[in-house]
């Protein structure tokens, strides 16, 4: 899905000469110690940062060459769960989740139905009219996940999506993400939770200090 990427941020390298290729519908775990560059890698995929060097091809487009008008269009096809959630504090949970539908111009009725269904799946329907600041950390994280998934994106980038969730919820949400992958969405999950990673038997990319340490394909996979 993307080809070569090489990047450094502000003087010191955050990623050094990384090359990765993801197939459509693939489920990949990105692991590595704190500061390894996981978030930086996701940011590149999402064109929130530009690579200092190298090319990145996402959904058939070289995002390094993308004009400022094309970036929003690309982003609408990608769902992202940010490590720090990035929810709008002055909008309700429902409105926050609805955002990713509104940017593509979904009619309000459809939006409301989809948002409600998604919140229910995540056990948040009773928090619908709350504001993010009055939610617990785990609830905020689930809102962020709901916003990323509600638009049925072609790519899902999730940065520590279960860091604030208890083990039961973690299982549930990973199930939700995995089911998105089976529907054809390419999924990249950055996490430190090694248990989690080992339990699912998916492709694992380990990063350290900006380099790919190893790239273990999914057990049942010939590549």
């Amino acid at each position: 899905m993307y080809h070569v990427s090489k990047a450094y941020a502000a003087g010191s390298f955050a990623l050094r000469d990384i090359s990765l290729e993801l197939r459509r519908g693939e489920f990949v775990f990105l692991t590595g110690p704190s500061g390894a560059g996981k978030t930086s890698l996701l940011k590149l995929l999402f064109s929130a940062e530009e690579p200092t060097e190298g090319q990145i091809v996402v959904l058939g487009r070289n995002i390094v060459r993308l004009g400022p008008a094309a970036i929003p269009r690309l982003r609408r096809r990608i769902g992202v769960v940010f490590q720090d959630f990035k929810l709008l504090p002055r909008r309700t949970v429902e409105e926050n989740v609805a955002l990713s539908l509104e940017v593509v111009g979904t009619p309000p009725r459809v939006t409301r139905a989809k948002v409600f269904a998604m919140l229910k799946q995540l056990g948040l329907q009773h928090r619908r009219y709350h504001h993010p600041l009055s939610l617990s950390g785990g609830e905020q994280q689930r809102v962020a996940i709901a916003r990323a998934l509600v638009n049925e994106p072609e790519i899902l980038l999730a940065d520590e999506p279960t860091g604030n969730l208890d083990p039961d919820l973690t299982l549930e949400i990973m199930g939700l993400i995995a089911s998105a992958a089976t529907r054809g969405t390419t999924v990249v999950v950055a996490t430190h939770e090694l248990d989690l990673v080992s339990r699912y038997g998916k492709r694992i990319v380990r990063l350290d200090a900006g380099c790919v340490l190893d790239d273990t394909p999914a057990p049942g996979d010939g590549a």
Partner: protein
Amino acid sequence: MRRALVQLGYFVRTALRGLRSSPVTSAVSVVTIGVSLVLVGAFALLLWNMEGLLDRFGDSLYVTAYLEEGRPVEDRRALVEIVATVEGVERVRVVSKREALERFQAGVGRGSALLEGLDENPLPASLEITLLPERRSAEGLRVVVESLEGLPGISDLASGQDWVEGYLRAVALVRAVGLGLSVILALATLLIVTNTIRLAVLARRDEIEILTLVGASRTFVAIPFVMEGLVQGAAGGVAAVLLLLGLFRLVLPGFEFGMEFLLGGVTPRFFSVGEIAALVGGGAGLGLFGSAAALTGGWKA
């Protein structure tokens, strides 16, 4: 088409939500725009009423044509009619010998028995020729004087050239100072308003950043903000008009005494409906322009 409607609905809803969810910021913008417009409006009122005052002074700008003695009354009537048709003349008034004497005595001082010893009134009758407002310039005066000069029955012309020039200079000065202050005031207002809205946008830059991360285009982010600016500006405009009206009503009676002397019978005027609309529209425009400028200028910072 359907999609455009959906989007419009979203924009309107978002703008209203924005106004509701950041009441302090909105209130600050409305108040700033309102206060700025009150300043501009109060100044405009003052200037316009001063223009009225200047026009009033201008009315006492006239050419005096002294009449030859001993001409029959018919001749004088014919002369008045001729003079009235001269280009640039607004009005002609006859000042009789008697009136001239009375004026002179009043001018010199109350009990002055100055000319009493004279057996005959030495002052001639004259015509007071008022110019059309648009002719009240040194040039216009010259034209009228030249047209009158040859006419029979007129012994002499006095146009008070010095006074005219002084008056015209004073008018020019007042206009120039007024214009200069208006320009400063308008620029200052514009600067203050855009700055205020820039700060308001700055206070919500996280919101803007998150929207773009979710895939919103610039337009999508900007339109609700600009609509908010428009509404705030219009609200500020309405507030300004109401405040000005209140001030006008409140302040006026206290000044009437002095005003009467300066403006004579002219009643100080308030804005017309069209001007009120312009003021409110100006507020809306300020809000619109301010938020648009803040968004393009302060997108990143």
